[in-house]
């Protein structure tokens, strides 16, 4: 390799790394930051559970994972309120003790299993912890 070629090569590499760094820094700025982890806790405390009667449910409007807290005879049950078919928000049907989907008429039982309609995957269930009279739902 001649000296002239070598210098030209170094010049190209310098310019190339400059451009790469420039594009890379812009892309790393544009890349969507991981905000969800900071914004959402793993455990949420549920308020107003004392007023629930057996068979009643409370809708918890959690932004990431909306869910129902249902009071059964055995205790509290937390079930996801998002349909597994196309992610519609479900409605709790108190009279028939089931969970209905407004979009395509799907029906889930209180254990989250699909009874009718297009969804085949059962609803996600969350662990419920009771500590000194307070109710917590463990997400994830």
């Amino acid at each position: 390799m001649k000296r002239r070629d070598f210098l030209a090569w170094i010049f190209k590499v310098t310019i190339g790394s400059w451009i790469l760094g420039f594009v890379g820094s812009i892309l790393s700025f544009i890349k969507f930051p991981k905000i969800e982890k900071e914004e959402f806790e793993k455990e949420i405390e549920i308020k107003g559970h004392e007023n629930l009667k057996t068979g009643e449910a409370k809708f918890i409007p959690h932004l990431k994972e909306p869910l129902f807290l249902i009071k059964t005879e055995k205790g509290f049950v937390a079930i996801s309120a998002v349909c597994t078919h196309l992610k519609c928000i479900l409605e709790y049907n108190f009279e028939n003790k089931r969970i209905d989907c407004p979009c395509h008429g799907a029906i889930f039982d209180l254990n989250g299993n699909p009874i009718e309609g297009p969804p085949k995957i059962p609803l996600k269930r969350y662990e419920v912890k009771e500590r000194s009279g307070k109710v917590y739902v463990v997400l994830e």
Partner: protein
Amino acid sequence: MLSLNKIIFFPLKKYFIEILILINLLIQSLTGFLMLFYYIPSMEKGYESTIFIIRDVPLGYYFFNIHFWGAIFILILIILLIFKIIFYKLYHPPKEILWIFTFILFLLFSFAYFTGILLPMENNFYWQVERIMEILKEIPVLNSIYSFLFGNFIINKFVHIRFYIFHSFLIPSFIIFFLFLIFLNFEREKISPFYLHYLFILFLILFGILLTLSILFPFKISEIYEPFKTPKKIYLPFFLLPIYFLKIYLPKKIFGLIFLILNLLIFILPWVDKREPVPIYKNKISLSIFSLFIILIFLTGIFGFFKL
């Protein structure tokens, strides 16, 4: 005397659809730019300011509705352009790059629709965005691009401001760039300042159509978005209905794969189809395949509509 024949079969009739897209884009840019004066890009104020544009700003009602109908029109036009290129086999070398630009333009326009409908923060549109995200999640390459730009398929204030930036600045600039590249492929002798008045006439006609549509069938804006109450029926734009049909009837993983393969096949069409560039209507077999393809798209779209 002006006659319809003269307007439609004007000297540039070879590029009729492309020019209509250009004029429609002009209308979209104008109405969109004017609405930027009043729109407040935030999740809380977005709905309020949209209502303000529609109700209180002079002519805001018309600008909003023309922008809405123009978006649907421009998507129809770009799909017609894709069909035209397939029909006349204009994708043959050395014009394969034209085909790719058109396809990218289609993706950009549909992405502009997707980002635009979130901005009013209106309930039906909000859930439309959620539903489109649900489809997007399953498509292998597109979902990683999406999550790079907009995160984890959740709508929050950061996503909203990004949608705003993309809709009002980034996508329009990319669209203008690719449209310019397509116009560079035109035959030079067909571009002449003597045809400018034809463009003006076309502009008036298109503007008239959009104005009529927006007066007769204005977009009925409903309540502010409710993230925890799904409406009974979530509508989708017409060009997504066939994809929605596939999404419903195919298992999760297969849907994304099939969609990606179909897209790739369309993308590399110039390199797959190496036959002589004879227009489709001159060959009975390719004509029947083409019409079958179109009928299939229509049927899946109609079935998808009834399954919404």
